[in-house]
């Protein structure tokens, strides 16, 4: 059972998700890590960790990620090495080429996978459906090789010294049809830095209307908390992006995270699940946030908020 892990890097740094993939992969079999870059050599040490048997470098024409370069490199590697399983992160970059390569090569494919197991020679992947309220086991009958995009921050990043062999792999490149121009930082803001707050009061779609933001802002102030939000409130223009918790926003780890009306989309949970104490108030008893919360209450948000305000 050979495993190919595709390393992800940005601005010359290997991203944590890569070592998470190695942890998941080494449970399945010997791991080969592919490092695809204009200059792969400086990235090799960061992936030479315990459980990696081989590191293969692929030189491409671009420093930063491009769909076409990654797709042709990964397709060539899979065709040459025939791994039983190829692991990519369920990340924005992988979304752009992983599914395409899998479809083209006739691989089995699943994304946002949060559990992988072997049953004999069969790969079984577990992922969620319907707002994370149910899980499903997937298998891949007829597929000799399978590509899985694994959910970030699910496996512990692999550490410890590795003794991998390092080799290089040649790929003939065709001109890129989608060319990286530059990385642009999100607009800097003079707003508070929610990653520094010890106590976040966080609100989500459940607050219903823009007019209700003010009530929770006042509550946060009374309680000595900093107000943060989930993505839908930023998308709606009710709050600035600087206050957004989650994968596309800020990753936070306050002592207390008090959530009102946040259902707990995977991308939100990824940004707050390591908080010290998580308290969630939601009207839906099946809300996914209760899976990571330490304390939960199924109740009307506004009634609880009103009562809470009297206590501070």
């Amino acid at each position, binding site marked *: 059972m050979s495993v190919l892990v595709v390393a992800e890097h*940005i601005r010359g740094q290997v991203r944590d998700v890569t070592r998470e993939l190695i942890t998941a992969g080494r449970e399945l079999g010997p791991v080969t890590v592919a490092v695809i870059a204009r200059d792969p050599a400086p990235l090799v040490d960061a992936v030479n960790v315990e459980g990696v048997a081989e590191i293969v470098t692929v030189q491409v024409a671009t420093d930063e990620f*491009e*769909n*076409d370069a990654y797709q042709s490199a990964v397709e060539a590697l899979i065709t040459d090495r025939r791994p039983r399983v190829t692991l990519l992160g369920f990340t*924005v970059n992988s*979304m752009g080429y*992983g*599914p*395409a390569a*899998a*479809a083209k090569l006739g691989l*089995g*494919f*699943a*994304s946002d996978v949060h559990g992988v197991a072997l049953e004999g020679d069969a790969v*079984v*992947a577990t992922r969620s*459906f*319907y*707002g994370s*309220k*149910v*899980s*499903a*086991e*997937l*298998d891949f*009958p007829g*597929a000799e090789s399978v590509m899985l995009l694994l959910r*970030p921050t699910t496996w512990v990043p692999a550490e410890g010294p590795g003794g991998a062999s390092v080799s290089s792999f040649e790929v003939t490149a065709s001109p890129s*049809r989608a060319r*990286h*121009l530059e*990385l*642009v*930082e999100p607009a800097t803001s003079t707003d508070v830095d929610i990653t520094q707050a010890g*106590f976040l009061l966080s609100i989500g779609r459940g607050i219903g209307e823009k007019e209700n933001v003010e009530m929770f802002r006042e509550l946060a102030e009374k309680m000595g908390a900093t107000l943060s939000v989930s*993505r*839908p409130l930023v*998308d709606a*223009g009710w709050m600035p*992006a600087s206050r957004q918790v989650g*994968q*596309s*926003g800020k990753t936070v780890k306050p*002592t*207390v995270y008090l959530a009102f009306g946040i259902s707990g989309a995977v991308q939100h949970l990824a940004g707050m699940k390591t908080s010290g104490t998580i*308290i969630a108030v939601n009207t*839906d008893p*099946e809300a996914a946030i*209760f*899976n990571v919360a330490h*304390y*939960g*209450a*199924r109740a009307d948000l506004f*009634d*609880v908020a009103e*009562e*809470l305000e009297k206590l501070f």
Partner: protein
Amino acid sequence: MRIVVCIKQVLVLGDEVEFQDDGLDVDPDYLDSALNEWDSFATEEALQLRERLGGEVVLVTCGARESEAALRRCLAMGADRAIRVEATGRDPFTVARALAEVVRAESPDLVFCGVQSSDAVQAATGTVLAELLGLPRAAVVTRVGYDEDARKVVVDRELEGGLLDRVEVDTPAVLTIQTGINEPRYANLRAIKQAEQVEVDVRSAADDGMPAYRVRRMFVPERGEGAEMIDGSPAEIAGRIAAIVKERLG
């Protein structure tokens, strides 16, 4: 110019869940349906481009007759035409194959899909569709700068942490559109009524390809230790929360 927008009527699970007898999916009685949130942003982006450059916006969905509700929502926003591909497959490979034939026949300048659907969160269909059409693509787009003369589009892709990757993409291209890129318009009552009258073009899809995966079992996940639930009146809940907060923060 012609923009094809691929949309999906998603299934929404309520407070309770029961499974079908075969255990492979949720009992349809426990599911509601709605237009996928990402797709209203994709439709709005297409409409704004059409308003600037002329042309038409063509909607395509894949599913049973009920999924026409999603098409009518987007027709009411202002899209010109709607096509439904009659198909039952739900995995991204099967859906992309069903869409590909219809989209190719439209010879679009741009194809928009939502980044993902809220019921499955696979973020794969648009990318597979691009592969089947032989088109370049960009995933998770938060800005579309279209240059008609140069036949290219400069887009921002939203990476983790909010960092943007600016990319120049040759067109025709497939872009998967992220929420928050625009403010989707509300349809007025008259437009909604008019959309009810539009005839949806129904096509069939012959499919003999391999699905991406097979669902072997569906189940309610174990909660692990889960949250300790606080019961009682709002005042009692608030009292307990206040006590926890004060104890933790000292």
